[in-house]
């Protein structure tokens, strides 16, 4: 016993002596050197190329990782958690392994989007951490227009899968922040028939509510907020941040939202959590290595936010999708994956007036097809119930869906010259140069997510001459409402995100354009699937319950992150907008524009020239002026044509108009001629008329235009040759 004690004493003494020597001469001792290195690298930082945005990362003594962001010294995100909790390991006590810093630059072209050419430039910090059995890489990027981060999880021991129990990514903001958000409120009451009433059978539709202002102090614990969310952290600073997610499709992960996890006197912590509505209750099983979606914070002035391409820039130099067997394809087949056939243009749409029963009526389709041809538009959309003759699953034959509000006589819809069957209709469309897009239920039409049924139906449609698809109800709403078999995946379940990708791919193979409705928000999929040319997930005209303020707020939030199929009319249905407001929207919302109304309204004389020229593919987008809750004014360029559009919300009490200053310095050299379209007095239909006035301007001009409450205007200019 005594010997053992002595031995132990000797060892301890030796260790102490060694440590003492090392402390006096750290450079000579590799162990100590490594330990000191770890202590020195508990904090890291990455700045944007222009150094205005700084992302700071730290790791505390317990091994938890956190970050913060500031823009020009203004705190945008206070100390906020990073990381994942997984079932297979403890990732709360990480050990730092290494860091890598690199600059990422490049450019890409867009077929649709705010800009036809986009450059990206970011500093990326990659931090590698180790846990007992896994490695976790955290990628943090700083761009001049924001920041982004994501994770890569891998097994150190050959594990193939992991279950992510919780994502800790948070955004801590001051409670003095001003916030514009869409409340994420799943609902059951109207969607579920009595026999199925069940709290778990809920859904959430991004297209059923708008974006409202709330002070951060009014957000309560557990409140849920959809992506994207816009906030202004300091009312005295011209800094805004729009937070959302990107690259969800293809990640193997579910879609996320934010939940108020901790509400303090000064700070509000919003944590990224899985979207509650869906079929899969315990989601988050991933294959390893797993690369998470990006969490993106577009940051800067309102101009920076509105013009930003950050959601899609994080894809870097991603190529358009090609199938795995691409190399075995013929040259002709390979051509498909150049996506040159993606030819966006305006799409005429009758559903907003002529509902389900009438979607089987070739006379109506002919009338809208003729109008599309007259306007030089390239597409016509046949909406729900178009295919009763072909008995495609998913049609609605409910009487309440059949309430058309159109007037055949007024719209000149007659039987004269109407094609008598589908083949003749397609022949007629081809003669007129119009391509047909057809509606389907994203789940029900395809056997609730059956790959073989999907291929079978798409092949049938292609054989019928269809050029694109509008796929609706990815949220499974119709099944819940009608009591049909509930799909095993819907909304933003990981399996449904996979279904999105499957559909995009099969449509790409068949050169079909895709427009998603009843769907999630865009998360950059267009970078890989350019045939996905539009997306609802926005509270649009079809809902008929928008307000001017809500629509304006969507321009600062939802519309920033990707295409928006708002489906504007020419003349508004309700009383919340003027005609001037409506005709501004096809310009302000990008994506392949769908325009619907009665033929009479589509024929409205003052807007014919404008609507013949509506820009779909855009070269440039400039935010000119505006403010959330107030008004929005932007300019869009397509070739040598500029479209300046403005929508207004409220006016000051006692005033009838707001004066909007439009600085035309962006025009560049030369003179630009065109027209101003603005609200006039009410017509017999109780909607404002449009006054069209000739205009001629140069970049030296600064216009002051009075716009009324809920009003709008458009200026369409073309460079004088």
């Amino acid at each position, binding site marked *: 016993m005594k010997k053992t004690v002595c031995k132990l004493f000797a060892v301890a003494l030796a260790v102490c002596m060694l440590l003492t020597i090392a402390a006096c001469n750290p450079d000579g001792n590799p162990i100590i050197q490594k330990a000191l290195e770890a202590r020195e690298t508990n904090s890291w930082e990455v700045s944007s190329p222009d150094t205005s945005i700084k992302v700071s990362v730290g790791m505390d003594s317990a091994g938890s990782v956190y970050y913060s962001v500031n823009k020009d010294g203004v705190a945008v995100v206070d100390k906020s958690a990073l990381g994942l909790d997984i079932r297979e390991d403890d990732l709360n006590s990480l050990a730092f392994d290494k860091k890598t810093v690199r600059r990422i630059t490049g450019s890409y072209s867009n077929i649709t989007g705010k800009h036809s050419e986009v450059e990206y430039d970011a500093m990326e910090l990659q931090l590698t951490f180790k846990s007992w059995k896994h490695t976790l890489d955290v990628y943090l990027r700083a761009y001049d227009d924001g920041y982004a981060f994501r994770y890569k999880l891998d097994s150190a021991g050959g594990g193939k899968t992991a279950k992510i129990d919780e994502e800790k990514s948070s955004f801590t903001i001051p409670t003095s922040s001003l916030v514009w958000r869409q409340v994420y409120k799943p609902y059951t009451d109207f969607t579920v028939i009595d026999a199925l009433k069940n709290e778990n059978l809920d859904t959430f539709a991004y297209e059923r509510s708008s974006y409202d202002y709330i002070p951060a102090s009014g957000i309560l614990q557990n409140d849920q907020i959809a992506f994207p969310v816009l906030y202004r952290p300091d009312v005295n600073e011209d800094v805004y941040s729009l937070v959302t997610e990107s690259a969800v499709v293809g990640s193997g992960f579910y879609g996320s939202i934010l939940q108020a996890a901790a509400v303090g006197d000064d700070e509000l912590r919003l944590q990224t959590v899985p979207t509650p509505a869906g079929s899969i209750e315990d989601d988050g099983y991933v294959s390893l290595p797993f690369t998470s979606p990006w969490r993106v914070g577009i940051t800067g002035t309102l101009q920076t936010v509105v013009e930003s391409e950050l959601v899609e820039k994080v894809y870097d130099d991603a190529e358009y999708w090609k199938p795995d067997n691409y190399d075995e394809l013929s040259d002709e087949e390979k051509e498909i994956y150049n996506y040159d056939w993606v030819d966006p243009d305006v799409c005429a749409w009758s559903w907003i007036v002529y509902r389900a029963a009438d979607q089987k009526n070739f006379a109506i389709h002919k009338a809208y097809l003729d109008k599309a041809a007259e306007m030089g538009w390239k597409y016509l959309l046949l909406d729900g119930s178009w295919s009763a003759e072909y008995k495609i699953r998913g049609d609605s034959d409910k009487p309440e869906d059949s309430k058309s509000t159109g007037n055949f006589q*007024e719209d000149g819809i007659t039987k004269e010259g109407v094609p008598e069957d589908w083949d003749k209709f397609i022949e007629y469309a081809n003669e007129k140069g119009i391509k047909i897009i057809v509606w389907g239920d994203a789940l029900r039409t395809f056997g609730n997510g059956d790959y073989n049924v999907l291929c079978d139906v798409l092949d049938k449609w292609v054989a019928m001459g269809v050029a694109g698809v509008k796929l609706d109800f990815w949220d499974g709403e119709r099944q819940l409402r009608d009591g049909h078999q509930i799909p095993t995946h819907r909304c933003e379940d990981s399996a449904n995100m996979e279904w999105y990708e499957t559909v995009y791919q099969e449509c790409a193979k068949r050169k079909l354009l895709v427009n998603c409705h009843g769907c999630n928000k865009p998360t950059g999929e267009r970078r890989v699937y350019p045939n996905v040319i539009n997306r609802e997930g926005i509270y649009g005209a079809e809902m008929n319950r928008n307000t001017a303020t809500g629509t304006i707020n969507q321009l600062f939030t939802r519309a920033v992150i990707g295409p928006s199929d708002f489906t504007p009319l020419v003349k508004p249905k*309700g009383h919340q907008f003027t005609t001037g407001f409506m005709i501004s929207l096809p310009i302000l919302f990008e994506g392949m524009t769908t325009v619907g109304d009665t033929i009479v309204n589509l024929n409205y004389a003052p807007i014919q020239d404008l609507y013949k020229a509506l820009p779909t593919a855009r070269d440039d987008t400039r935010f000119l002026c505006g403010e959330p809750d107030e008004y929005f004014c932007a300019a869009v360029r397509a070739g040598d044509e500029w479209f300046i559009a403005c929508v207004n919300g409220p006016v000051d009490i006692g005033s009838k108009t707001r004066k909007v200053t439009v600085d035309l310095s962006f025009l560049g050299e030369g003179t630009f001629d065109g027209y101003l379209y603005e609200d006039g007095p009410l017509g017999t239909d109780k909607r404002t008329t449009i006054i069209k006035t000739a205009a001629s301007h140069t970049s030296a001009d600064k216009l002051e235009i009075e716009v009324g409450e809920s009003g709008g205007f458009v200026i369409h200019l073309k460079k004088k040759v």
Partner: protein
Amino acid sequence: MKKIKWIALLCVTILCLTFVFAGCIDPNAGNDDDDDKVITEKWWEDTGELSFNSEGKVKYSNITIKLATVVSGEDKDTFKSIIDDFNREYKGRIAIDSEDIGQANFESTVAQRISTKNKAPDLIMSHQKGHKYFVENKIIQPFSKDLMEQSKISIDMNDYSAGLSRYSSLGYKDELFSIPCDAQSMVVFYNKTLLEEIGKELPTNHQELLDVCQAFVERKGTSPIAWPAANQNNHWYNYVFTTAIMQNGGKLYDESTKKADWTSEPNKTAMTKAIQSIRDLVASEGVVKYAPFNDKTSDDSSQLEFVDNKALFYVYFPWRIESLESLYKTRNNVQDVTDIIGTTSVANWFAMDSSSADAGKIFVDSHFFAMSKLVTDVSKKAAIMEFIKWFTQRTDVCKKWASTGHITACKLVGDTDEYKNDAYCQRYLNNFYPDIDNLVSMGLTSHYNTVLSHIKTLGYETLSNTAADIESKLASIQKSFNDEIAMNK
């Protein structure tokens, strides 16, 4: 010894039971049906202090008010727009965060949220009929008159419709629990061209209505009144049949017992007259009845009768004006209906005694505001009162709300030329509701579902079979009504 133990045990048991029952007694209750209670023990709190700006007005700093509203139909976008207007005007001071909750579950959902303090609203805007339930379950708190005085935000019920504001105390003497905002009922559209064709004027009483109907039948051969009656999924009973009862001096329930008392006088006669007044229309002589009472009559079919120019009058909801006019234009290929479709009221239509003070009554649903018991901070309470005052007493706001068919309950607004001369009010609301003091609603019973379901049964059974004996129906349905009340107590 054993005996003593048993006696001691018995005494202890009695004592325990006494304490238990004592604990069950609500210090503020007396008789649940008593509409003159006095609050002796508050179930809400007041915390904090008001602060004031240099103008002596309450200073608010980023107060968010969670508002739960029952407004979720075609009027939702206008309501939202009004909220946006308030938020803009009060930005940085007060923000309203509104959430709409469907009518079917509104009371139970809101009560549960407040009871469990989970997603609880601060302010409620819902139909008056549900507010007695809220106060009986101590879900809401009164608006403090002291706080009104201190904050100088005064809301005086004398400035509101007499017919509606009488419910504001919810049965608590001198308390203000519930503030009326607006009212709506089924209203009357008529075809001006057809009325002129038959050479008649708009009826001003029941007999004149019958005369107009007779003239129409003789001239046109179709039913002059289109309404979605009989269909049991329908609101006709909630608005039209109840209006008929009110106009004949009837009472849906006894205000002190909350039970139906339809078989003793004078209510028995009043109820009988109400039923008879509708029988005059649905069981008129001749093959073509003045108004249908048919299970198959739906909203759509009755609307088509009117828009296809077969009916002279159409009794329907005011917030569907736009869709009605749009459908008329479509089906008749006209651009403007101003000279074709007119508006009038059900006032006096059913009163068998046109000279009665009740003749002009209209039974309505009315939105009222009430404050959750969970609001404690006095600045927030003041902010809530500020918002209510803004919503109910600002003429521009009331005009905007009127455009969805909701007439103001506030006389400070309703009596102004600005409001009365508003184009929408002139064309519609002034005609729909000639006198807001004549608007009546469910009143102070928490058993409103029982009331409405039994009124529906009474209406259906006495009108689908116009030979049915009214007296026996009154008795049998009253019994069912009162049995249900007893079961729910």
